[in-house]
Each structure stands twice: as C-alpha cells, then as structure tokens.
C-alpha cells in the first residue's frame, strides 16, 4: 500500500490547501496560521501561531495542565508523596502510564512512584467542599508513609468549588514539622495545554524546594540538567556519560529525581537545558536568584551528545575536563558509528514525520539525520513560538487570556545564596569565543525548505499529511499510534518510546538506529493484503499437482 508510489505528487501549497479545505471557515483561518510551509530563509524565520487554544471538537493530541504538572514534572520524583485532590480518574490515569524510570530500589530508598493516591472526591465533597477530606487524606498519607514531602494536586472541580489547597498544605506542614507539604493549582482547564502545567509545577518546585538543602556539594564540575525526564532510561544513560566525564549532575528536573536533588539545585555551577519548552524559565530564575548561568544542550543524537559535552567542558574551561570529555567521546563513538554504518543502507533516504511535545520534535531530527533520514514534517503538541522560531521572539510574545492566568513568579538575587559563577569578563570572553549562553534557535531554522511545520497537529490533518506525503515513519504518541499504523505506516511513540529506550546519549543512539531499522524495514507491512485480494480473478481451472 502507498509504499509503491513514494514520491510526493503534491506541491506544499496544494497540501496545505487540502489540509484546510474541509474545515469550517473560522477553523480554517485559525489553523492556517499554525501550518507553516518552511521557506528556510537566510536570516529571518517565518512566524507561526502557537500555544493557542485547541478548537473544540477538533481531535487534538493535547492533554491538560494537570497532566503537565502531575504527570510530567512531578511524576518522576520518587520520594515525594503525590496526592491528587479530586475525583479518582485524574489520579488513576497518571498512575505509571509514563515511562519515567526511577532507580530507587533497595530498603532505604523511598519510592512512591508505584503508588497512586487520591482523595477520591465524592459528590458530597463537591457540594460541601473538600478541604476537610484533603486534610484527612494528607494525615493518613503521613501516618502510613512518613514521607519527607507531600505534594497536593488540584483537579478541575477543586478550583471551582474554591477549596484552598495551599492553606490546607500550609496547615499540615506546620502540624507535621518534619514533612514539607505544598500544593499545585493545576486544574485541567487552565492554560491551553500541558505547557501551563509544567510552568505551575516548576514555579512551585523553585519556590518550595530549591535552596532548601543544608548539605554542601563539593564536587568539581557541578551542573543541573533541566528538562530531562528519564523516559525509557534516557537520564540513566546521560548520567552514565556525565559521570564518565567527571561531571556531577546535582539535580535533574525532574527525571529520576529526589527531594534533596531539587533542594540542592542552587549549588550547581551551570544549568543545562534539554527540553527548552518545559523549563527554560526555571533556568532564568536559577540565574537571577542564585547566579547560575545556563546553556541549551541536547543529548538526543550521538553528535549532539558530543557537542553538548564539549560545550559543558568549554564552560568550565578546564583542560583536564576538556581532555576527559574528548577521551570519552573517542571511546563511545566507534560503537555508535558501527551501528549506524550497519543500518544506513536500509534507512538512507527514508522520510519521517515528528509531532510531539515541546522539544523532541526538534531533537529527534538529529538522530534521523545521522541515519540519513529526512524529517519532512514536524511540529509541537504544546510548544510556544520561541520553540519554533527561537528565543529572540520572546520579548514580543503577546500574553493572551490563557497565559495570563498562569502565575509568573518574580525572583531576585538571594541575599545569601546568590553568587555569580563567572565574572562579566569571563562571560564576555566565552561569548566572544563563540560560546552561546541561554541560546535556542528553535526548530524552524533546522528544517529544510518546503517541509511542513504544524503546531498542535490534529488527527484529521495527521491522516491527510500521511496520505499526501507518504512518510516511511510517523512519530507521535499512543493516541496517534494505531490510526497511523492502520494506514500501513510504521509509527514510533516519542513520548513513551513504546517499550524502548534509552535513546539519549551514545548507547541511546545505537538503540534508536536499531529500533528505526526494525520499524521501517519490517516485513509486516507487506502482509496487509490477502492473496485473493491481490489477485481476485479466478483462473478458469485450479492447477492440481
């Protein structure tokens, strides 16, 4: 099917037209601004509309604010009890359904990841208010587990009925004394996507956790890794590589994280941002409040990993570190190159589409490039304009009603803990040597002319795109997986990685090459038609032996 006629017979403008033609005018107008035919201009980047409301009735990939806050950001932390205040569903669906892995086995390590806790609100709670029940639930959780912290998450009805979860949290925190209790107003209806939830979560983590640790970190090269969620063990692989290089990862936000890591984040000397979307503002706050500079890095792709390591080494500027990093890269690359060499003959020239998250749709193009595969269309599920066009657009992003009600916290240098890691001169020197701080150019400049960039792609457009452009591989999430595969196009989940991973770092690259080779070359897709469907005609007489 499809596979036969590979070439795209449609011009980009035709395609865009076809994507829009069936929509009601109002919808078409809106979507038109979120679908961009890349022009790949030299030094200006075309504008796209992003981080705007999903249109009711249009089947979106997006989730809600609660999902971004509880599911994505706070989910991966092992030793904080996550208590969801609301009807049971929200808590149930966020129960072990992301593949954020945690190395917290063993007697002494607390690990609440496998537990799902909820106040299971009933109608009486909706009518008379749920604060009492919430307080009681926090007490029961405390009595059962004696955790160092309890996080409360609000679900849709909570805001409406006016439960003051923060007051309850404060009250219980005081009552316990030895347990940090804090809450997140992450009702599902806030914002326009998970992105709002990331923001709410990160603000609270920054407010309630960062800087709360007494123990001093004395390691030599200390960094924070922001926006890495250890899906399929990505974080394990990155930590392996960093450790091998002699770099200490103080805190990952928030893959395989613990309470104490967050609390010590202020002690790092550099913040490295993986997922720009979900966390770049935390990097800014860390700099403002504690004087920690930040850089954008990317551990997806072997080359990108090497580049990121070199960048970190350059920042510390220490020859010993620079040498170790080069040694590590030299050790790791041969296996990567061998694996790549093996698959290239089978993957070169194949095409992919990527529609996920905030930064992955960008990062994973690195891996596909290494395999000789071209990304012909991509877009974010909950990205903002700066993720598409680069950070230079941030100053003139217009703040709409939906963004406005997501709290922006104002931070200023911390009286004791603020300490600039580099003098202005050092910074200057690095920059003039081409070193880029807090720089991110977005996805658009990295994509070829006439590729399609689509924000908040929906099911209808996805199906059309696949029909018209016939990619060899489509990447999105679980909801999209099987409608795409029904078309005979292999589909790779880049949220959960199906059951694969890690795909980050060097080992991850090898895993990814093999996985994509399996997908785009599987014979399964040749079985879709039965012989009697391929040759329906009946020869007059059956040929007997």
């Amino acid at each position, binding site marked *: 099917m*499809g596979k036969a006629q590979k070439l795209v017979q449609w011009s980009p403008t035709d395609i865009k037209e076809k994507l829009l033609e*069936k*929509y*009601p005018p109002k919808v078409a107008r809106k979507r038109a601004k979120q679908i961009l035919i890349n022009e790949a201009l030299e030094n200006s980047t075309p504008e796209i509309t992003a981080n705007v*409301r*999903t249109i*009711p*009735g249009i*089947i*979106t990939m*997006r989730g*809600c*604010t*609660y*999902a971004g806050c509880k599911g994505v950001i706070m989910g991966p932390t092992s030793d904080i009890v996550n208590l969801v205040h609301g*009807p*049971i*569903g*929200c*808590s*149930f*669906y966020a*129960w*072990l359904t992301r593949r954020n892995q945690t190395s917290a086995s063993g*007697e002494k390590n607390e*690990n609440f990841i*496998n*537990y*799902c806790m*909820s*106040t*299971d609100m*009933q*109608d009486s709670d*909706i009518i008379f208010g749920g604060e009492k029940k919430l307080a*009681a*639930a926090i007490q*029961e959780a405390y009595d*059962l587990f004696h955790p160092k912290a309890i996080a409360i998450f609000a*679900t*849709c*009805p909570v805001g*409406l009925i006016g439960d003051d979860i923060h007051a309850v949290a404060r009250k219980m925190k005081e009552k316990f004394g030895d347990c940090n209790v804090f809450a997140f107003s992450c*009702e*599902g*209806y*806030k914002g326009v996507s998970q992105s709002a939830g990331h923001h709410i979560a990160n603000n609270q983590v920054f407010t309630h956790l960062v800087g709360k640790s007494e123990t001093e970190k004395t390691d030599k090269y200390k960094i924070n890794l922001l926006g890495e969620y250890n899906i399929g063990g990505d974080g394990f692989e990155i930590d392996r590589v960093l450790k091998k290089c002699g770099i200490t990862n103080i805190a990952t936000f928030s893959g395989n994280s613990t309470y104490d890591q967050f609390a010590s984040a202020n002690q790092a000397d550099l913040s490295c941002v993986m997922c720009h979307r979900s966390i770049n503002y935390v990097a800014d706050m860390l700099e403002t409040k504690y004087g920690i500079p930040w850089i954008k890095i990317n551990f997806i792709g072997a080359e990108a990993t090497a580049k990121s390591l070199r960048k970190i080494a350059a920042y510390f500027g220490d020859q010993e570190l620079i040498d170790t990093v080069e040694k590590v890269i030299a050790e790791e690359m041969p296996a990567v190159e061998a694996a790549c060499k093996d698959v290239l003959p089978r993957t070169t020239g194949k095409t992919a589409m990527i529609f996920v998250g905030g930064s992955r749709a960008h990062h994973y193009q690195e891996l596909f490039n290494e395999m000789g595969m071209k990304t012909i269309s991509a877009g974010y599920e909950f990205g903002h304009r700066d993720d598409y066009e680069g950070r230079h657009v941030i100053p003139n992003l217009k703040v709409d*009603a*939906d963004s406005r009600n997501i709290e922006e916290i104002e931070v200023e240098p911390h009286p004791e803990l603020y300490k600039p890691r580099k003098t202005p001169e050092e910074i200057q020197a690095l920059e003039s040597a081409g070193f880029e701080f807090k720089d991110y150019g977005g996805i658009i400049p990295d994509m070829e002319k006439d590729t399609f960039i689509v924000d908040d792609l929906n099911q209808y457009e996805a*199906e059309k795109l696949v029909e018209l452009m016939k990619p060899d591989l489509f990447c999105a999430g*679980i*909801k999209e*997986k099987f*409608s795409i*595969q*029904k*078309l*005979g196009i292999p589909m790779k989940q880049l949220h959960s990685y199906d059951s694969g991973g890690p795909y980050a770092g060097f080992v991850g690259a090898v895993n990814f090459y093999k996985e994509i080779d399996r997908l785009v070359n599987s014979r399964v897709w040749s079985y*879709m*038609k039965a012989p009697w469907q391929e040759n329906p005609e009946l020869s007059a007489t059956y040929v007997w032996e």
Partner: protein
Amino acid sequence: MLLKHTPEEITERKALMINPAKTCQPIGAMYAALGIKGCLPHSHGSQGCCAYHRSTLTRHYKEPVSAATSSFTEGASVFGGQANLLQAINNIFTVYEPEVIAVHTTCLSETIGDDLPQIFDKAIKEKKVPEGKTVLGAPTPSYVGSHVTGFSNMVKAMAGLAVKSGKKNGKVNIIPGWVEPSDMEEIKRLAAMVGVKITMFPDTAGVLNGPLTGEYKMFPDGGTPIEDIKASGDAIGTLALGEWCSADAARLLDTKCKVPCSVLDMPFGLQATDRFVDALRKVCGTTVPDEVAAERGQLVDLISDMHQYFYHKKVAIFGDPDQLIAMTEFLVSIDMCPVHIVTGTPGKKFETRIREITAGMPFEVNVKAAGDMFLLHQWIKNDPVDVLIGNSYGKYIARDEDIPLVRWGFPILDRQGHQYFPTVGYKGGIRMLEKILGVLLDRLDRDNPEEKFELVY
C-alpha cells in the same frame, strides 16, 4: 520490592484512596459510545479527560480510539461550556461526519452545571446537527460511582433513544454490559445458536478488535446501528447482563416503552451462562441445539478432568461488580476459594451478593466495595493466595508477593488476547480455566523439587 511501603498491618482509611480498583465515569461512557455504529464519543470538559480516556482504551486494545473534547479553558469554566459544545458539534459533523455524537459530561461541566439537553436543542435549532444525524448525551459526573456507572449511564442514554411504534419486532434486546468485543461476539453467537433474534447494544465487536488492511476507518464496520437502538422499543423483552452495567437501561426501556426486562448475571462461568442460555430459549420458546450442550459439556468435562489442580486453591480477585459476581460464582462452583474480593465501585449490594455466593464455603472471605488495591495487597500479605485475578495493575502485587496473575478485567495494558478470545459463555469458561490451570501448573513446574517434577498432569 515495587510496593515496599505497603505495611502488613491494616489501618482504617477514611479519606485517602491508594491504588484504586476503579476509575471515573467518563471512560465508561466513552467505551459504551464506541459500541454505536458510526459514533464519535465526545467529552464535555477539559481536553485532558479525553486524552486520558483515549490513551487508556488505546493501550488496552492497541487500536485507534477517536473521541473529541470541548477543550474547556478557564473562561469556559467560569461562563459555562455551551459555546464550546455548540462549536464542537458543528466542527465534528463538518470535519468527521459521524452518524452519531455521544456526549458525556465530566466533573468540570457537572460542577458548572451545563445542561446537555438544552444545549442539544440549541444545536438543533441552529442547524448544527445535520438531517438524520443523532446527538445523545449522558451525565457522567466523575465524583459519583465509577467507570462502571459511566458505562451504565451512557447505555441508559442509548435506551433513552428507543421509540415504541406499537408493533413488536420479535427481537430480544440484549444489553451485554462492559465486556470485551470478543465477548460481545460470543454473546451474539450463542443467541444465534439458540435461534433468538436480538438487538445488542452497545456492541464493540469489529470496532476495537479491527483488522490491519492498510485502510484506516475512523468509523469501523462494527457497532450497533442507531436505528436498531431506536427500534429497541419494539422488542419483546430485554435481557440485561449485569445489575451495575445494564439494569438502568433495561428498566428505562420498560418504563419508557413497556419492554419487559430481566436482569441476569454476566455469563461468566458455567451457571451464569446456563441461566443466560436458558433465559434466551424461554424468552423465545426456542430449543437449545446440541452444539450448545456440547460446548457446555466440554467445560464440565474440563472441570472434572482437572479438578484436582484447582481444588481449594486460594484466589484474590479485583475488578468490577458484575464481572466479579459471576466469576466468584464460577470459582466457587469449581471448588476454588476466592478469599479476597475487591471492587473500587461503591455499592453494598455487591458485598451482599458475594456473601450469598460464598455462604457456607469452607473459607473466610474478605470482600469490599469501594475498596482499593492497597487494601487488597494488605489482605494478601495477611492471608496469601495461589492466584491473583485482575487487571494489569495487579502485576505489582504479583511480583512482590510472587503470586501468578491471571489478567482479566479492565484495563489490560500489557498482554494481548482479551480482544480476540471471549471469557463469556462456555468457551470463555474453558479459556478462563485454561489460564488459571496454566499459571497453577507453571508454579508446580517451577517450584517442585526435582524428585517431584512431573511429566503428566
């Protein structure tokens, strides 16, 4: 240990639910709605609900699950979701062209107090619902009951579409309750064998166990045609399978269209299937063919042949009320000992039924409605079992306690088969027994000392 913080000592909890054995109403409504031919389920609330329900159903079936949402924003939550839903209805009929939109509410829209019938009227007045297309709605407040309640409410909404022409159509309505597509197929097969003409709704066979052909059908061939649902008001009677899942719809058909009904247990296991088949033939005065008796006899034969291996083996089982009631009866009937039984769905009636079924058995029974898996785990720590039966979340207990898990119920996220092979009916009983025997014998093969290792069972 995966659940190392679960203490053996059981303390009472009034406010905190841990590791639920239920989820909320809307997903049940969505699953039910997928059993209508050409229907797009619609979630009237924040878009997260819809995303979560679609994801869970997709993981369970490894099939595309389409559903739309009103994508509430803060504004909608304050001013009400009417505008969103009207816009959604228009967009859906324009872009996806379903025959039916089945709307269910959420905790959000229920708390706000959106009035679906009134919004539907407006949609129709504003010509947002094309000629001949149907919109139906079910209130499914997440803070009442469970996913089972939501399923029941949507099925009841279907029954609400029934009309009475005054002329009986000679068919029997079967409301199968929340069972797998394969089970629905099997129920139809049994009814056909007994020679009974039926209208079954919902029917997810062919919807959530579809083929791979290179073609994507947003609306697969399966599902109950909306006309048949509307015509169910002319049926001679309704057999509702499962008090929790199906009784409300059946009783509505009775009060609304004077279609008499009878509420049976879901046909899991020997006796429940016997009662179902017997009801079928009595309702229509048909004769049960020998093929059915033969299938039944095969199940009885298997029970007798392998009785020694499951005799007095202890079982912990969790899931939904209707399923648990029938399965517990089955386990008891073959001399197994279901000692721990938990459903997350509330309803004292459940505990009463289980007590009746296990009355006079030579074992103590722990049973709880509105319970959770944390409690179940604690019960198991205090009184270990030979087999755990339930959904995929049971695997964490199974690994920690080294108990084999027979996956049965919803959701099953880590194995295949449930969508293809029924566990209802006699053949389904054979499949369940095969699975239970399999895990029990696997343990003998694993744990027996070498001198007791057996070739023949």
